């Protein structure tokens, strides 16, 4: 799905304080590298222009020079100096960007699954999937875990990426400095749908974030619309509840697939592959494999009417 309202995806589109430091270091390193590349290219061009064998060459051999110790010391010392400077800057930026975490509790726990993302806000008691929110101007501590294979979390405009490795929780700080919708994709090859395991980060003002949290905490109202009531029954009697959770629906408490408690609030389905609306949700349930081949959700054997009812139920979960 083409997400049109997203911010420009580039590591130079600085959306976090951390990425500001990374980008500064990036320009500095890039300038040095471009300079060296120009020097080497320039020297090669000069050599080609100056030392081609002349037309009327007498066949004699040029002067045979073994080496030049002074020159060799210079071209060892200057690179050494450059890498020393880069080494010092590396240490400074590393410590500024990712200071030691100690025993701090993370603000957001991200769990990579094949092929979707689970987001938990342990301090706020919220669990959601695939689209998450951050308040602007607040340094947020992330923790990454994996439920299956190695994934890597990379919101491009936040700069850094961090792997999610089974049995090895990792951390990263993100201090968003501008609001907007920022995209990313899983960056460690994780199997069939690696390329469509998208990340959608919404950075919003604090008040808006608080409102979002409130909504996430609220238990959705029980359906009253007859189609939605039928949908809920079907949802609970079909195999949906073997994997999915919906708060307030005591039959649906499984934690294998994405939490669907407030699915109607999300913009996309299938981790960013489809726009979220009743029609797409219905098609998705009838055969998710057409949109995301290899996805772990099986093809549900639902009639059009059944799928429609379940879709209406889920789309009522605001």
């Amino acid at each position, binding site marked *: 799905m083409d997400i049109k309202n997203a911010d420009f995806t580039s590591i130079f589109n600085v959306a976090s304080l951390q990425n500001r430091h990374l980008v500064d270091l990036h320009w500095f390193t890039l300038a040095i590298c471009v300079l060296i590349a120009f020097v080497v290219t320039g020297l090669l061009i000069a050599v080609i222009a100056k030392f081609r064998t002349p037309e009327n060459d007498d066949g004699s051999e040029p002067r045979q020079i073994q080496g030049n110790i002074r020159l060799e010391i210079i071209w060892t010392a200057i690179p050494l100096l450059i890498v020393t400077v880069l080494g010092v800057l590396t240490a400074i930026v590393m410590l500024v960007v990712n200071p030691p975490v100690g025993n701090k509790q993370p603000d957001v726990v991200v769990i990579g699954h094949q092929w979707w993302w689970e987001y938990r806000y342990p301090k706020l008691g919220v669990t959601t999937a695939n689209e998450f929110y951050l308040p602007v101007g607040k340094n947020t501590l992330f923790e990454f875990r994996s439920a299956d294979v190695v994934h*890597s979390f990379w919101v491009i405009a936040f700069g850094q990426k961090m792997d999610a490795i089974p049995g090895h929780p990792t951390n990263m700080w993100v201090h968003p400095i501008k609001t907007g919708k920022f995209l990313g994709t899983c960056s460690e090859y994780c199997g069939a749908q690696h*390329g469509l395991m998208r990340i959608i980060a919404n950075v919003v003002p604090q008040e808006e974030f608080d409102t979002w949290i409130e909504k996430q905490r609220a238990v959705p109202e029980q359906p009253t619309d007859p189609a939605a009531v039928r949908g809920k029954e079907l949802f609970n009697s079909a195999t949906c509840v073997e994997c999915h959770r919906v708060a307030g629906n005591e039959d649906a408490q499984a934690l294998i697939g994405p939490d669907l408690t407030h699915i109607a609030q999300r913009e996309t389905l299938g981790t960013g592959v489809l726009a979220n609306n009743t029609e797409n949700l219905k098609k998705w349930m009838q055969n998710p494999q057409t949109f995301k081949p290899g996805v772990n959700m099986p093809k549900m054997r639902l009639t059009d009417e059944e799928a429609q009812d379940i879709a209406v139920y889920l789309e009522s979960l605001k």
Partner: protein
Amino acid sequence: MTGGTIHTHKPVNWLAEVPEYQGILSWLTSIDHKQLGILYILSAFGFLVVGALMGLTIRLQLMFPMSHVVSQEVYNQIFTMHGTTMVFFVGMPLLFGFAVYLTPLMIGARDMAFPRLNSFGYWVYLFGAIMLFFSFLSGGAPAAGWFAYPPLSEKGYLFNNGQNYWALSLFVTGIGSVATGVNLIVTILTMRAPGMTLKRVPLFVWMILMDGFLVVFSLPALNAALVMILFDRTLNTKFFDATVGGSPLLWQHFFWFFGHPEVYILILPGWGAISEVIPVFSRKLLFGAGVMAASTVAITFLSFGVWVHHMFAAGLGFAPLYIFAVTSLLIAVPTGIKVWSWLATMWGGKLRFTVAMLHAMAFLIQFTIGGLSGVAFAVIPLDWQLTDSYFVVAHFHYVLVGGMLFSLISGVYYWYPKVTGRMMSETLGKWQFWLMVFGFNGTFFVMHILGVLGMPRRVWTYPLGMPGWAELNFFSSCWSFVLVASMLLFLYNLVWSFYHGKIAGPNPWNAWTLEWLADSPPIGENFERVPVVRSRRPLWDLQFGSGGDGEHHA
């Protein structure tokens, strides 16, 4: 050196007429390092075509957003096989081919120290390669990427046999590689011509010696890891299963402990070739040969201490990461020394722009770009931005195609007359060279930008509307056709020149190392008589009486 009385047959000047090489059986049963070298190189080129076509399939799939040229299942198998093939079945045999063909000739020996082990290495490699490709027929090729991170490569996530074939095949090939590595070390240490001290071996041989050590000390780490993953998959051990106390990170450490030296294993023979080609076509002694040799030793040591830079985004904590940032930065210094030495060799020379030399000069620029983009991965904060993106794909193709492949193709143009007795076509060669320069840079340069724009590697497809992704991918895919065409033209040149090339004679380039003293193609025992070596350039001494080591300037 021709026409001696020792010959029982008249000297020949074309490979196809060598009496010992007549008939298939002579090739299948050969323990001659020259035949085995040719077999290695031809096999490598065969797999290069296969690997390039897989690469082309990847480019076709990525040419347009949300396209469906191949299914994601096939795509994942293809990029896995592309990487595995290019590293293990193109890169390794290509360098071993050069190494086993040239090393004995360049040090004045009759053959490798262990000719049968040499033959074992080749056939085991070919067997391993065929076994891996057989997996396509067994229900699916491996699909966990060329570094096969568990748990994805465990049977819980990839349950077809492909991954087992992958582990077994690389294990078998790896045994052959270690055998060849040992063979090269022993040959170089014990079989040099009289007077050829280690300070006087050609730079190519010096690089191969270091390469031998790299192979012998790094491949066992891979082999051990392959046995573990194979046991995990077939005997239910739990080496890499975090749920019961195993560790997926353990694999990453094992793999990259092999994987980073592997990069230098692949590039060292290329550097060696360049260090022979540039002096000969500049008509000068290699500048700072001693420092060049010493910097290679430094790289060999350092390359065993940089592997964690492949894991900078794995959250290992400040201290372990930083140590490896320092070593990774340091390794840039000896690498830089080489580039300056090659440039200084050309300075003040009389340059001859043969096709071999053109490739060497393109190598210099492309390898420098690949080296500089590598510095970006040593600076850890930049690594956090760029790792696992298309920037990495650009980086290692600049090193391995722009660097290794260009330098070894340069070597093919340079040594082809020695191997076959005929010159390669310079006209076809120049066409091939320019097509390859544009094809290669057109395909891979834009990938740097794709990485900066956030495109992760190994994605089957990408959505519409990502800024620049569609345009840059389209651009890259178009040039990839030119790149593949240039490779095919190169292979065509190999065949055409074999039948129509000018007869070369022993020393067509007026070069200075011992292999040019032998006939082209060399006789079975390589040399009838080897002169006492008194400098780095024995043939210069033969021509001028002395001065092979040049004059010294403080």
